């Protein structure tokens, strides 16, 4: 039984197809990577899979639930969490509070409870704080527990988004170019973190430009070109596929290979 499944998923912007009739399925517990040249539709696909865009056609299922056309917060409630390529951090809060926001779906309370700050809420808040701190340690942000988000460096903010996404207790975690802008050491750490998440039986969808990271961590790779599926399979197979090489390097390179 697949965790996430799409059927003929399409998205058009003013007559131009950014994603065109995509069907694929992601099994639980795997790292599923989506790659492709610039403009292949990777970010559009991620926005479709989190409800930020409504599809022009096709369907999205999480388990048995049809999420097609739902709002992003409903995707989140169903168990889809994500990070952003261009950071979307709450810079008006502390790092810890950023992660606590991720626990909204678990900790939400009535307006009266919030206004009166009942003892039960105060207890729940302490537990929430502790869980958020735990997640920050998990992603390697122990030294930033007391920091304001605006004071943190870029690499740490990327992890902060991962911690916030994990705080929703997702069934599936979508990472949008987690290695972009990181140096080699930081990138290795992100790779290790993804490995750690999988060992905790998380399902990870990875959109990434860095081939080394993709080849290192992926169980399955989907290659997009012009919004269509160019190839899909295990990392090693995909890397040798002449169509993939052509899309990335041009047809001459494919013949030489």
């Amino acid at each position, binding site marked *: 039984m697949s965790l996430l499944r799409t059927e003929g998923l399409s998205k058009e912007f003013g007559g131009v197809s950014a994603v065109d009739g995509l069907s694929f399925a992601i099994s639980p517990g795997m790292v599923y990577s989506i790659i492709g040249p610039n403009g292949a539709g990777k970010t559009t696909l991620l926005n479709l899979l*989190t*409800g*930020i865009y409504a599809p022009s056609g096709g369907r999205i299922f999480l388990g048995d639930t049809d999420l097609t056309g739902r*709002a*992003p*917060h409903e*995707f*989140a*409630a169903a168990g*889809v*969490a*994500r990070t*952003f390529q261009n950071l*979307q*951090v*709450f*810079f*008006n*809060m*502390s790092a810890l*509070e950023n992660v*606590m*926001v*991720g*626990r*909204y*779906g678990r*900790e*939400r*309370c009535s*307006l009266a*409870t*919030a*206004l*009166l*700050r009942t003892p039960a*809420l105060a207890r729940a*808040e302490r537990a*929430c704080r502790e869980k958020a701190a735990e997640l920050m340690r998990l992603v390697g942000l122990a030294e930033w527990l*007391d*920091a*304001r988000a*605006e*004071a*943190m460096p870029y690499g740490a903010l990327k992890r902060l*988004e991962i911690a*916030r*996404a994990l*705080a*929703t207790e997702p069934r599936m975690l979508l990472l949008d170019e987690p290695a972009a802008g990181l140096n080699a050491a930081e990138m290795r750490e992100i790779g290790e973190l993804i490995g750690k998440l999988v060992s905790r039986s998380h399902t990870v969808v990875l959109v990434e430009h860095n081939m080394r990271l993709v080849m290192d961590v992926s169980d399955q790779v989907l290659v997009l070109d012009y919004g269509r599926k160019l190839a899909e399979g295990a990392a090693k197979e995909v890397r040798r596929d002449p169509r993939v090489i052509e899309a990335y390097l041009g047809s001459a390179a494919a013949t030489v290979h």
Partner: protein
Amino acid sequence: MMSWLASPRTGGFAALLAVIAALPLVLSNNYFYEVAILVGLNAIVCVGLNLLIGYAGQISLGHVGFFGLGAYGSAILSARYDWPPLAALAVATIAVALLAYVIGRPILRLRGHYLAMATLGVGVIVSIVAATEDRWTGGPDGMPVPPFKLFGGTLSGEGAWYCVVGFLLVVTVWLSLNLIESPTGRALRALSGSEVAAEVSGIDSARHKVLVFVISAVFASVAGSLFAHYSGFITPSKLTFLHSIELVTMVVFGGVASTYGAVVGAAVLTTLPQLLTVFKDYEMVALGAIMMGTMIFMPKGLVPSLQAWAGGSRVRKGIP
């Protein structure tokens, strides 16, 4: 001890209580009391408005409309229908909450300048209705409002009003601090930080925007009801567009996303024009200069800037 004093939930709250309790020692005549009561009522509106503007990152240039609806609702029900003032206040508040919900649903889909325009309309409509529906409101001449009655007694005298408004301000600040530190409050702050990230974290942004709009309208409405009973007379001249702008200015001047900032902003901008009367003809010039100077040198507003200076290196290191 220092951390206890530095925490807004304890230190700031203790300071607010102390100021409200100590102020009568220096309020030597009724005029001072009157200014203090106006400060309190403005501060109640500003604390609510700050939830909307400062924390949730939305804008309203029409909150004087909700203030006016509370005022006229209380005035009409208690003067024309002989309702007990407390019941009139309650019904006016509920009606304003419902209205804010109905208005908020469509207009809070707008952002930035467009939202400002739409909310501006709310305030303008209320003041026009108040000025033209003279059978109900007395038209431009206004209408008298009976005194407020509480527990069988009539609320009269500046001292008694000071206590009631002071108490309500404390309650308002307490509710606001509680809300901001709750999951709901974090959701509101997340909206102004990044709406898309809030949504993918499971927060229904439309619902929360409407929620905070309604809460801020309720605070304004209650203050309006009390203002009507306190002054004993209400006219549309209290509901000008300019007053909406003043309310937003108080919030920004005191410091957005700071509950105490809203209180301080209301206090400073309500009393400053009174103090500046010594400049006679140059009163407005002096007020404008002070406001410009403050925003240039304290762009985050009074309270957050002073906190940052007091915190010094702590803030620069990123420790809250």
